């Protein structure tokens, strides 16, 4: 019976894993090792800013052990969505860390860098040719939306990975990629069936998340014929039908239909069966090829942001907090207008922790029972100076505004920090969330090869 083994070190490169898990996992002789480095989950900022949401130190630690293990075993090491968001600066950052590790550890290999930030004018031409479609109630993609985006990435499927492996790449760093694609690619290329290969990718994309206790760590998946087996190398964890089923629901709007580049993974009839005390067999998935589409993700500048954090312990104020915040808003509005900043040139949001700071408009509990309330005030404006000016006025008004029956005449709020106002810099928002039908699955993803020799 043919089988293919894949070792994922962690859910996100840089979240850490036990070195012992890697050692045990490698002893099972996986055919490929890797990690997905990215997600849109930390929000639009990182794609826009060209930086990673993980630290260089943590990423370098995770990568170093993986590269050493992969080169010793002579198996490919694949990183998906490099640098967290998979744009050009993210990929360059990831590659630089790999080169540095290679120098320090005297490693030599053929490296592939798969780019995923398509040319803007090429995208405009494709959008104008009717090859894009909006997702999630977005408007149609037009030239203006494409051109004003700070950064747009396309999400690759398995084909660019397969091409790089065919060319002999031993280390692959990909730009933005569909989370399961790097795994599906290696397995499909080895002759495994698409359905369990894609499903394996879904299991591997977050490392040990399908295990219990669920923490960042390694996961080994073995694909055989039409099923797969999930097992964590770390002996303190195990896969159970519940832990695997839990992860099967992860981050998808539907548990039964998973749209991927080139097809649909149908999981309606999946079974989760106990294979051993620590391993679960998953079977019954199917794969239906569909017209090929890739997802586009893009962000645009929304303004510049500043925040301040404070809290109150005053029961008189807490009892009338909604009225107080209305008064506060009116004072900020008047005072900002007085120094020349009109109300339509900024947005101020006050989050009240202890009331509805977590769920906002979805919070069903209206009564406040806490003896203290925390506030995070946010101001977004078209430039940083305006945001800074309004947040400074919001801070001082929060501290000093009068209210009925007030006893705390010296100040209404406790501010934990000096400086109290925090400049958050540019703020981005998702502006492109569309599909694109390419002629060829690889055409948007140029591959650059590099011989790393030490």
């Amino acid at each position, binding site marked *: 019976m043919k089988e293919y083994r894949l070792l994922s070190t962690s859910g996100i490169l840089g979240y850490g894993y036990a070195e012992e898990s890697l050692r045990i996992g490698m002893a099972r002789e996986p055919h490929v090792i890797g990690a997905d480095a990215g997600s849109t989950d930390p929000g639009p900022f990182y794609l826009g800013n060209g930086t990673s949401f993980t630290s260089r130190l943590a990423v370098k630690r995770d990568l170093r052990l993986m590269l050493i293990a992969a080169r010793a075993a002579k198996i490919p090491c694949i990183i998906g969505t490099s640098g967290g968001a998979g744009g050009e600066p993210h990929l360059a950052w990831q590659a630089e860390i790999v080169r540095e590790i290679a120098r320090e550890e005297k490693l030599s290999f053929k490296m592939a860098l798969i780019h995923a930030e398509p040319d803007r004018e090429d995208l405009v031409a494709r959008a104008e040719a009717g090859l894009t479609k909006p997702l999630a109630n977005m408007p149609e993609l037009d030239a203006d939306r494409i051109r004003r985006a700070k950064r747009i990435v396309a999400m690759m499927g398995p084909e660019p990975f397969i091409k790089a492996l065919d060319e002999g790449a031993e280390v692959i760093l990909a730009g933005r990629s569909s989370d399961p694609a790097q795994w599906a690619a290696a397995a499909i290329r080895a002759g495994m069936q698409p359905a369990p290969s894609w499903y394996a990718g879904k299991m591997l994309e977050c490392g040990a998340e399908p295990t219990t206790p669920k923490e960042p760590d390694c996961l080994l998946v073995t694909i055989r014929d039409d099923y797969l087996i999930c097992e964590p190398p770390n002996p303190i964890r195990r896969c159970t039908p519940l832990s695997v089923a839990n992860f099967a*629901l992860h981050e*998808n709007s539907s*548990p039964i239909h998973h749209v991927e580049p080139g097809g649909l993974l149908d999981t309606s009839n999946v079974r989760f069966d106990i294979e051993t005390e620590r391993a679960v067999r998953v079977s019954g998935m199917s794969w239906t090829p569909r017209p090929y589409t890739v997802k586009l993700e893009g962000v645009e500048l929304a303004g510049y942001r500043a925040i301040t954090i404070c809290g109150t312990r005053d029961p008189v104020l807490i009892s009338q907090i909604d009225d107080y915040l209305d008064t506060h808003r009116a004072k900020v509005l008047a005072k900002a207008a007085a120094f020349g900043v009109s109300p339509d040139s900024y947005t101020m949001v006050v989050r009240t922790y202890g009331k509805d700071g977590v769920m906002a408009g*979805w919070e069903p509990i209206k009564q406040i029972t806490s003896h203290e309330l925390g506030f995070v005030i946010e101001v977004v404006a078209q430039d940083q100076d305006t945001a800074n000016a309004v947040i400074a006025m919001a801070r001082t008004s929060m501290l000093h505004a009068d209210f009925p029956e007030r006893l705390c005449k010296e100040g209404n709020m406790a501010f934990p920090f000096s400086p109290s106002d925090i400049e958050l810099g540019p703020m981005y928002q998702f502006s492109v969330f569309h599909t694109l039908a390419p002629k060829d699955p690889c055409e948007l993803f140029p591959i650059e090869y590099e011989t790393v020799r030490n």
Partner: protein
Amino acid sequence: MPKIRDIAQICKSKNAGPFLVTIDILFEDPARYRAVKATGVINEALFARLYGVKESDVLLTPYDSANAFKATLPRLVPAGGIGDTDVYGAQQHAPLLDVEVPINL
């Protein structure tokens, strides 16, 4: 009457992309899942009522393979947008915990 917090093993929320939040309730015991499903308590109207959204905006899928219910709702604010309170969408499950389900334990 038992509440969801007493009978489910997992109740969680998370983004499904930047514009949607998805909420899952899982049961370890298939018989308990089937009993809960048979009551009909977990439906689109429940999510509409708890979260103040339109029933037609709730995508509810009972998933027998996983002994689970999944509900997906449009987020109030896109992840990371002005006024967003939960960038990862990981803390929107709590109103479900106290929902009563008429089954015998």
